[in-house]
């Protein structure tokens, strides 16, 4: 995944080389070249406009996937940090780089989700920002990422930096469900029902549902594609540092 040449334990056990799994993942991520244009075309040409919202409802096919990838990226950076801390005695530095890259991509997607959400808010409620519980959740998620990068900069000279920033990412990941899933359910919100709701159903008509699911798949693949590229760049940089030493 991160471009390292060593064969990991699970790969040895399964008999497959890391190169094979990397190649498979690379081809899966390349599906984004097909799925993303399809998702954009479906959002504008296939899905009907929502009743009451009109053409502005097409923002749904971009805003929801962006918010989904923000939470996904943050969760993956947390999970990678857990793996770094609790497995391999802190030797698997590529996990820290992958967690960092995932957080960086997550920050970008969070900014885009906040921006698209505020445009939708203006079109639906008449104001760009009104501290709705879901708007507050996304801005807090952005603050968590910003705090992570500030902490990382402050620890630049510290030899235990990787362990400490990983611990912060895990700690932050644990607090995320409280303000993404719990707080918006305690306080009343103007935001439409979340896609994953108490009924465990998507409240959309079928053409809209298919378009939304395609958009979510496309943005998830885009996230995987960018993360893969970023991890390869990190691996090359690490190799360069090793060569200089």
């Amino acid at each position: 995944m991160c471009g390292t040449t060593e064969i990991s334990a699970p790969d040895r056990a399964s008999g497959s080389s890391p190169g094979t799994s990397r190649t498979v993942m690379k081809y899966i991520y390349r599906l984004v070249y097909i799925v993303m244009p399809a998702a954009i075309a479906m959002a504008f040409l296939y899905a009907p406009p929502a009743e009451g919202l009109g053409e502005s409802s097409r923002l749904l096919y971009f805003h929801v996937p962006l918010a989904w990838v923000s939470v996904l990226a943050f969760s993956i950076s947390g999970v990678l940090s857990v793996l770094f801390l609790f497995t391999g005695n802190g030797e698997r530095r590529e996990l820290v780089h992958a967690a960092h890259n995932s957080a960086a991509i997550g920050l970008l997607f969070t900014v885009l989700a906040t921006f698209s959400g505020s445009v939708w808010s203006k079109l639906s409620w008449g104001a760009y920002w009104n501290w709705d519980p879901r708007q507050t959740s996304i801005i807090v998620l952005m603050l968590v990422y910003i705090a992570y990068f500030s902490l990382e900069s402050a620890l630049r000279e510290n030899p235990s930096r990787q362990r400490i920033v990983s611990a912060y990412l895990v700690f932050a990941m644990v607090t995320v469900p409280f303000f993404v899933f719990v707080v918006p359910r305690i306080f009343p919100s103007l935001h439409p029902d979340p896609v994953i709701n108490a009924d465990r159903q998507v409240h959309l008509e079928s053409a809209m549902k298919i378009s939304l699911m395609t958009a979510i798949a496309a943005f998830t693949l885009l996230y995987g594609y960018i993360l893969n590229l970023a991890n390869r760049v990190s691996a090359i940089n690490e190799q360069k540092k090793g060569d200089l030493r």
Partner: protein
Amino acid sequence: MVKTIIAHIKKDFRIEFRNRYAVSVSFSFAFTTTLAISLAAGGIPFSPQTHAVILWVIMFFTAMSGLAHIFVREEDRGTSLFLRLNSPALAVFTAKLLYNVLLFFVLQCMILPVYLFFMQLDVQSPLFFLGYVFLGGIALSSSLTILAAIVARAGARGALFPVISLPVSLPVLWVVIQGTSRSLGRAGFSSPGDMVFLLAFSGTITAVSYLLFEFVWHD
């Protein structure tokens, strides 16, 4: 283990009462801010929501000025290495956590009368008001203790602590401000949901902090 924890708490309180740094700085901050707001308001009555916001902003920044000190002091004096060598991480964290919870409780007991007096606040449901204030205090101090340990290991500690603490503390502030506002107004106590949230948050954060402290504490 229990003896070690008690010994650490005693030591920390003894050092605090010797120089009274955290208590005096935090209380001075809260006192000055309350006076400044009261003076600026000039007797204009605030709504319960505004009072709840002001009170918890003061509480949050009081916590910012006092709660990081417990770990920063160990790093500054060079005693953290001694602690790492002589005490298990679990005992150190438990002692620091209990110290911070107790210290913030003491600070809240000092801040509340000052705020109630100068802001001429009339509390409609005193029991629930105190419940929200002290549960919020426990949730804040339990989440800030591990962050204090993280900040103590970094440079630019003074600026960094609020930056990394605010996003993590916001769920607590969000819930506790609404609860405090209701207890100040006529709405009183409406549902146990937010109190359960504060307890669940404190419990989860404390459990995760125990798991992570060893990684933060040891080199």
